[in-house]
């Protein structure tokens, strides 16, 4: 939108009408918004005008006056059922398409782990860089957030990107976006989560890719999630059963991420983030066929962040096998 206000314009600084468009999705969302605003304005004004005109034109002239006997019209009823229906279906289809686009992450999106807890947002980048209540992302590159919560439901919301997803304890949720405009944008928690809900906010900084690389290099980097996960894998003695050569008491983990496994008692499960998480905290729930239910639960022994690191490691085992190191920055 070329006519849209410039962010620097002094006059509108404190009188904003419209949020910044800073992601590839934002324009799509705003297009529906403008369409619907137009429809709403049209029908509201139409009804208001008719009501006002009728109320004046047919005002009561004398006390005993009664209205003209009109009981209805099937044709009109059908007309004003059909036209709204058509408009509604356009809105439905358009909205659904945008929604699906916004929830189907492109392959090769850069992944960042996010953990919400009362009342802060923790993020960890693929190379191990961590930040709290901040998120730095490169411009022009799809970024996928894999999000979990340590306590109650939160919701990760970046208005300038028009994205939002609830962050739910006990499972993962994701959202993705491609930032298009460098800048600093609000980050909000949108799901009420307790006393300092309105303090669970921060900033998302979109940077040129080169700056982003510099930023990654500049901070005090801890071990990457994959490396941290590998260390945990050994420290927690997962490696004593999940042997790589197939002779262990647990299933071989390399090459299984994203695949289907046969379960004991019938059925199958896709090995994804949710399944790996469940297997760590509630290992008896879905046993792979041919194995004994002997794995103890690690619930309470590992934090949400550590589970995410373990998942990153397990996933990396499959990516090495496939020879496609996706999900690392700069690839």
């Amino acid at each position, binding site marked *: 939108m070329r006519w849209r206000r410039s962010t620097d314009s002094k006059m509108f600084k404190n009188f904003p009408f419209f949020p910044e468009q800073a992601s590839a999705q934002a324009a799509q969302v705003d297009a529906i918004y403008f369409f619907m605003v137009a429809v709403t304005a049209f029908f509201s004004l139409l009804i208001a005008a008719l009501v006002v005109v009728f109320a004046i034109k047919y005002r009561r002239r004398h006390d005993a006056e009664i209205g003209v006997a009109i009981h209805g019209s099937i044709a009109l009823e059908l007309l004003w059922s059909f036209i709204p229906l058509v408009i509604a279906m356009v809105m439905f289809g358009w909205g659904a398409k945008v929604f699906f686009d916004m929830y189907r992450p492109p392959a090769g999106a850069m992944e960042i782990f996010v953990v919400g807890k009362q009342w802060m947002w923790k993020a960890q980048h693929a190379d191990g860089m961590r930040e709290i209540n901040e998120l730095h992302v490169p411009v022009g590159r799809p970024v996928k957030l894999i999000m979990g919560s340590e306590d109650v439901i939160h919701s990760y919301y970046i208005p300038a990107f028009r994205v*939002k997803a609830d962050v739910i304890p006990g499972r993962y949720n994701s959202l993705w976006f491609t930032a298009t405009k460098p800048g600093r944008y609000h980050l*909000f928690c949108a799901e009420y989560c*307790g006393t300092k809900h309105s303090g669970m906010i921060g900033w998302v900084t979109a940077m040129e890719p080169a700056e982003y690389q510099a930023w990654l290099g500049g901070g005090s980097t801890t071990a990457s999630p994959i490396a941290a996960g590998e260390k945990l894998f050994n420290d927690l003695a997962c490696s004593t059963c999940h042997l790589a050569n197939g002779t262990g008491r647990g299933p071989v983990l390399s090459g299984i991420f994203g695949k289907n496994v046969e379960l004991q008692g019938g059925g199958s499960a896709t090995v994804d983030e949710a399944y790996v998480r469940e297997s760590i905290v509630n290992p008896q729930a879905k046993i792979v066929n041919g194995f004994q239910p002997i794995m103890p639960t690690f619930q309470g022994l590992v934090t949400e962040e550590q589970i995410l690191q373990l998942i990153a490691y397990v996933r990396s085992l499959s990516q090495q096998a496939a020879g496609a190191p996706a999900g690392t920055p700069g690839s």
Partner: protein
Amino acid sequence: METVSYLNDGHGLKSWLLTKDHKRIALLYLVSITAFFGMGGLFAMFIRLELLTPAGDLLQAETYNKMFTMHGVVMVFFFLIPSIPAVLGNFLIPIMIGAKDLAFPRINLISWYIYILGGTFTFVAALSGGVDTGWTFYTPYSTAAANSHVVTAALGIFITGFSSILTGLNFIVTIHRMRAPGLTWFRLPLFVWAHYATSLIMILGTPVIAITVLLVGAERVLHLGFFDPALGGDPVLFQHLFWFYSHPAVYIMILPAMGVMSEIIQAFSRKNIFGYTFVAFSSLAIAIIGFLVWGHHLFVAGQSVYAGLIFSFISFLVAIPSAIKVFNWTATIYKGSISLESPMLYALGFIGLFTIGGLTGLFLSTMGLDIHMHDTYFVVAHFHYIMVGGAIMGYLGGLHYWWPKITGRIYAEIPARIAAGLVFIGFNLTFFPQFIAGYLGMPRRYHEYPPELQVWNVMSSAGASILAVGYAIPLFYLTYSLFAGEKSGADPWGAKGLEWEIPSPPPTSNFEVTPIVTHGTHQYEPSREVGIA
């Protein structure tokens, strides 16, 4: 000697507190919901004062959270849901169908006591420190994290639910079994149709919220695992169960108001409703389809995108019967004999506000758009356009329209028109800016907010003060009319319907003889030979 009416047939507190007369019970409700409206309004005032500035400088964060929670709980469960059905519906349904009372007068009184008992629990919860979960009681916050009086408040809601169930049950049985001879379904006033549809939701939906808050209580107190992931539960299941009731509950609030609108618009246009059967069936359609759309509250809550698709689709369908109503009301005014007395001002205001409220609901049913708007002030503005711009305008319009029937007195018209105007202006100034703040990304339930959003919040708070004045004025002139109002005849408006054929205020048994109905109750034209335009 004064004529005997339900008002002077028995004196003293006991004759009121033990009455089985539906008209007196309606007045018991009128007094109690007005008290709760005042209470909810007070909480709203604190919210709007706090939000005058971006910083959280008036209230502690926790106090603020309790304010919006109590505002929601009180307004939803103790004002909006009982408002029109329990006051106007209770008073008018038996009269409109030519019956002497509801089918179960004793249950009717019991349901008022249940309402008061539930209200007491909620009141105690508020006084003893409040509850801070939001009126939605989302788990696991409400069961595992919140450190406030969740159980007391939940119990209040659980108990009050039975009041709503019993009222709905009474209406359904009454409408089926107590109609006067000849009063067939398609001769029923649209107000009765609307209440029939409302009652369906009350009996089908309310039990589900009852069991849901019971499970929340059991999880919180007994640590039974239902919704908390730490206990193996799924918090999204709570949201399904909660909205299975709480979305249709919005229709409990708006359908009776739509019924009131149909009555007022006919009366002040002196004209039959345009498309009676469409208006009547659209009430039923809204009630039934309304049960299939709850998942549009869960688009970003981790619900499957495919389930979201179904919910979005059906949400668009439920908009059609609402659109039909709006168009039919507008067409009813066409070539009417329009008189802009205060009830009609509320009615015309309702049409405008409900149109905006309904259309902005479509924004939120649009999946791609809802990602951005979910849980922002856009949602807050939308549902206030429905609940305040719709339901409360309907309630006030109805109260003014039937006030002469209820009390036998005429209120002062000039202040009534001023109040109606102030409510309309104040309402729009309060809530329209919230649409803009919402699209800018201001999340709801925020105690502090980014400074650039202040201008919209100041407007909103300013509007709220006008709205408060608009709501306060009727208290004075309506009360004044009780003592000094001119006596109204049986039919001060020249309106049609069985209720206008009996004296004002009505005698205790409503009708001396059971009326026999031979044509629609709202026949305005002198001749019955009318064609279809």
